[in-house]
């Protein structure tokens, strides 16, 4: 009895959360152009999508910005995390707060402030401003996923490498990096996803002439509903879903490489 109630409750929650997206997915396969009735199953909106040059262009821009911004944010964020890990408790907490604020801050505020910043520096809006903006808001995600890895590490590990004759640089690449690598990967994927996903900040920093998929969908929808946009949104949703699943499954390489014969020798 209790179990059934649990299940119904869970079902309602999932329905509530996913009904809008499910509608979107269903509509993207609807042959009829109106939302009101089901005209049969079709792939034609998807076909139309991949023939639409404007969309493909936006797709290319989105991908490039996501890749580049995730890459730069990963490098900057990892270095920042290492520095923060070496700090004393007080300043570490202060830095942590400073990195957390942009993530909790309303995106529209971040977007407008970045826009104002770019204007005051006299930068021309376009690819580079969007890239800068995305790097900026991606850095905290990287820090947040790398820092716990660093904290887990035995602080003597680095010193042990030096002790055995390694130079600091060699020790970093051989000993620290492999240990925090899963954190770096999940930070990168997280940043990539956030960039792919972003609308508001991009909207305020892109200027005319440049579009990512999300801003493209927005302008297209303003002109009138086109079913291609349903299929595009569906594709974005699925991509982000897969990426997030990947983030949650970052490698935990803690297995024996080869089972030794003398597994159980204990002295």
């Amino acid at each position, binding site marked *: 009895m209790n179990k059934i109630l649990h299940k119904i409750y869970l079902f309602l929650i999932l329905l509530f959360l996913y009904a809008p997206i499910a509608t979107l997915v269903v509509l993207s396969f609807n042959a009829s152009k109106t939302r009101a009735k089901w005209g049969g199953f079709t792939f034609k909106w998807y076909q139309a999508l991949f023939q639409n040059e404007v969309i493909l262009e936006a797709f290319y821009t989105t991908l490039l910005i996501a890749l580049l911004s995730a890459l730069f944010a990963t490098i900057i964020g990892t270095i920042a995390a290492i520095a923060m890990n070496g700090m004393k408790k007080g300043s570490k907490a202060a830095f942590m707060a400073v990195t957390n604020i942009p993530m909790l801050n309303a995106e529209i505020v971040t977007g407008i402030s970045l826009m104002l910043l770019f204007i005051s520096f006299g930068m021309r809006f376009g690819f580079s401003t969007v890239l800068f903006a995305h790097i900026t808001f991606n850095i905290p995600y990287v820090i947040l996923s790398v820092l716990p890895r660093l904290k887990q590490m035995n602080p003597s590990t680095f010193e042990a490498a030096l002790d055995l004759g390694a130079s600091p640089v060699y020790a970093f690449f051989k000993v620290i990096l492999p240990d925090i690598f899963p954190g770096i990967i999940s930070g990168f994927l997280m940043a990539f996803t956030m960039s792919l996903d972003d609308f508001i900040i991009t909207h305020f920093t892109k200027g005319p002439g440049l579009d990512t998929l999300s801003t493209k969908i927005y302008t297209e929808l303003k002109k009138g509903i086109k079913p291609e946009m349903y299929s595009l949104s569906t594709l974005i949703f699925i991509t982000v879903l897969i990426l997030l699943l990947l983030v949650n499954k970052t490698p935990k390489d803690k297995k024996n490489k080869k089972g030794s014969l*003398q597994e159980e020798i204990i002295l």
Partner: protein
Amino acid sequence: MSNRLIDLVNISKSFGSSLILDEMNLYVQENEFLTLLGPSGCGKTTTLRIIGGFESPDQGKVLFNGSDIASLPPNKRQVNTVFQKYALFTHMTIAENIAFGLKIKNKSKAYIQDKVKYALKLVNLDGFDHRMPDSLSGGQQQRIAIARAIVNEPKVLLLDEPLGALDLKLRQGMQYELIRLKNELGITFIYVTHDQEEALTMSDTIVVMNQGYIQQIGTPETIYNEPENAFVADFIGDSNILGSIMLRDELVEILGVKFACIDKGFGENKPVDVVIRPEDVELLSPNETNLNGVVTHLIFKGVHYEMEVEANGFTWLVHSTKMVPVGAFVSIAVAPGNIQIMNKPVSEDEEATAIDE
């Protein structure tokens, strides 16, 4: 003959405003097993880290074979460390861990393979080459950490409480292993512990430290039998420490009772500290001596009985194979040779002893 391999000269070190080591002088001879012994926070690890190159002293010199290495980074020193928490490289196999230092020195593949095999044999873990550190027990990881350090054939091995995380049985086993290793390899060991028994068992030389000061340097026997001050006496094993008066040579007044002793040269009517080990206190029938008391506690300890005797306002700790029941009246005797006279500690040491009262 007395070849000073490492010589710490006037080393001082502060962290922030707290002085951790104050003008410390210490030398280590070739092939010696030297133990730094002292309570938590006394600066043992700091001393070791200065020798290893992980901390630089604010003042003073670190001499290695006579030349100053104070500015040499850790990777350039002929010294290897076994860290307190093993610090194995978790993403590498055991073999890769042990080979780490040799690879950096560009040794040949064959040489490395031989060395890894040899080191694993030495620590009794043959066949563990392909295991990952996480799949090993604490004791096994500890031995890998030792193997990883010794394949580099360091002149000196620094060990920071290497057995601290192991249970008693394993720890005793490892103590013998370490002594065997040291004898086989002929490496100088500098060992840190706060376990006095461990220090007494393993060392050639013990350095007793407290609050950044060296209290006494000596062989285990001297440290135990002739502690130089109350702190050392108290830290090394159980003891009765009594403020007393040296009346003249070979006569000391303890708790108002005169005792014959064998020490000379303290002057007349001089306040001193007296140490008497619990196993040196003899219990006789009442009034056989001038120090009478009553037994207040009795515990059976296996080899001996541990008793507490109230006499002249002091609680004596007594170890004896003869049992005396609680409530029995006794008198106390101590052989002159078993009364150890020490100068009252001066200035900063005074503080040190106060903690343990």
